[in-house]
């Protein structure tokens, strides 16, 4: 089948792209090596991908908590069920909103910069230079970023959840005068540690892996031109968002 035709563009190209991404991942994982350099490089990437995303995650988390509590309060008060406010907030945060929103923000903040960085390395032939120096770019460039994503995203999700709960407490307890201990007591009584909280953290790790994998892959496979890098960063954001939402549905369906 020719890939120039309409069917090719619609159906064959995405499948080819997926196949290439999976092959790329297998290559990266099969050459996985652990050592001091690898560890230090991973920590550097945790800094660039995680610490640098901290501010946007904290601010968004706080406001998501505020607005979610506002909306839930309005809805629940119509049924006279405002005592369920804390539970509804914590469950929607831990199970869905925390992981999904964090990783989409992460893709926009860190994923794009990883893609652009690797794309630019490719365009300026730095990857070839590493290869010539007998340094495997898979090992030096790709693997630390993959590992860093898996480490950084769950940590960011946790920070997001804490900030959003803080926003929820600020709105409901300080602004709406809901009884603080009962708000928090309801959360403690109803949120299950394994199913709700750890399930959400499992999602966070999977999403972190997806986001960093796609970011690295699109950088690696970008055309070595300015235009190619620009296209690759766009693809990173779009594909990560779609992949995460799709995976989220599948994971939720299996976990519930």
């Amino acid at each position, binding site marked *: 089948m020719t890939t120039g035709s309409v069917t090719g563009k619609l159906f064959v190209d995405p499948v080819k792209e997926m196949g290439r991404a999976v092959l790329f991942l297998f290559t990266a994982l099969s050459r996985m090596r652990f050592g001091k350099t690898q560890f230090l490089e991973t920590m550097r990437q945790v800094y660039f991908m995680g610490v640098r995303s901290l501010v946007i995650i904290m601010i968004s988390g706080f406001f998501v908590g505020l607005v979610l509590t506002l909306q839930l309060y309005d809805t629940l008060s119509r049924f006279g069920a405002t005592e369920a406010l804390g539970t509804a907030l914590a469950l929607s945060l831990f199970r869905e909103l925390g992981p999904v929103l964090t990783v989409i923000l992460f893709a926009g903040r860190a994923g794009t910069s990883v893609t652009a960085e690797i794309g630019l390395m490719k365009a300026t032939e730095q990857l070839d230079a590493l290869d010539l120096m007998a340094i495997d770019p898979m090992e030096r460039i790709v693997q630390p970023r993959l590992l860093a994503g898996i480490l950084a995203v769950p940590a960011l999700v*946790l920070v997001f959840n804490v900030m959003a709960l803080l926003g929820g407490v600020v709105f409901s307890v300080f602004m709406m005068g809901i009884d603080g201990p009962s708000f928090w007591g309801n959360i403690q009584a109803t949120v299950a540690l394994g199913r709700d909280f750890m399930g959400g953290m499992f999602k966070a790790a999977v999403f972190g892996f997806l986001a960093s994998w796609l970011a690295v892959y699109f950088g690696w496979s970008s055309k070595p031109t300015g235009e190619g890098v620009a296209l690759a960063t766009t693809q990173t954001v779009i594909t990560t968002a779609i992949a995460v939402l799709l995976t989220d549905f599948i994971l939720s369906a299996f976990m519930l």
Partner: protein
Amino acid sequence: MKSSHQIEFTAGLFLLLGIACLIFLAVQATDGGSEIRGGSYELVASFGNVGGLRPRAKVSMAGVTVGQVERIELDPQTLDARVTMKISERYDDIPDDTSAAILTSGILGDQYVGLEPGGSPEPMRDGDQFLITQSAVVLEQLIGRFMMGGGGDEE
């Protein structure tokens, strides 16, 4: 540009922050696994209908949680629901003529097993079965009886 030591240190701090948030949320914002701490023993009750009772539901006596539902299965012989409950070892002197009922907390609340103590001096032991049980109230049946003339006493 920060030195690489500073970067690594900040990254480590960031991961520690993540772990701190994990511990805080896991301990303070969840039920902490709601496993019964310390030892426990199992009691069994047969119900004609468990309604919406689910594993991990509370077992309470006089409003105090004394254990949780471990599993619910269908008895192949009697076709009743066999509910196995884990009761904390602290409460080891539940009289053996205690009755178990499936109750609902609030109108839309969770279903739980409520124990009503009897007066027997003998306590229940691991694996014992409740003699008197009361099934869950199924709202549809209740409404049905009401509509058919208020009498639930046919048969």
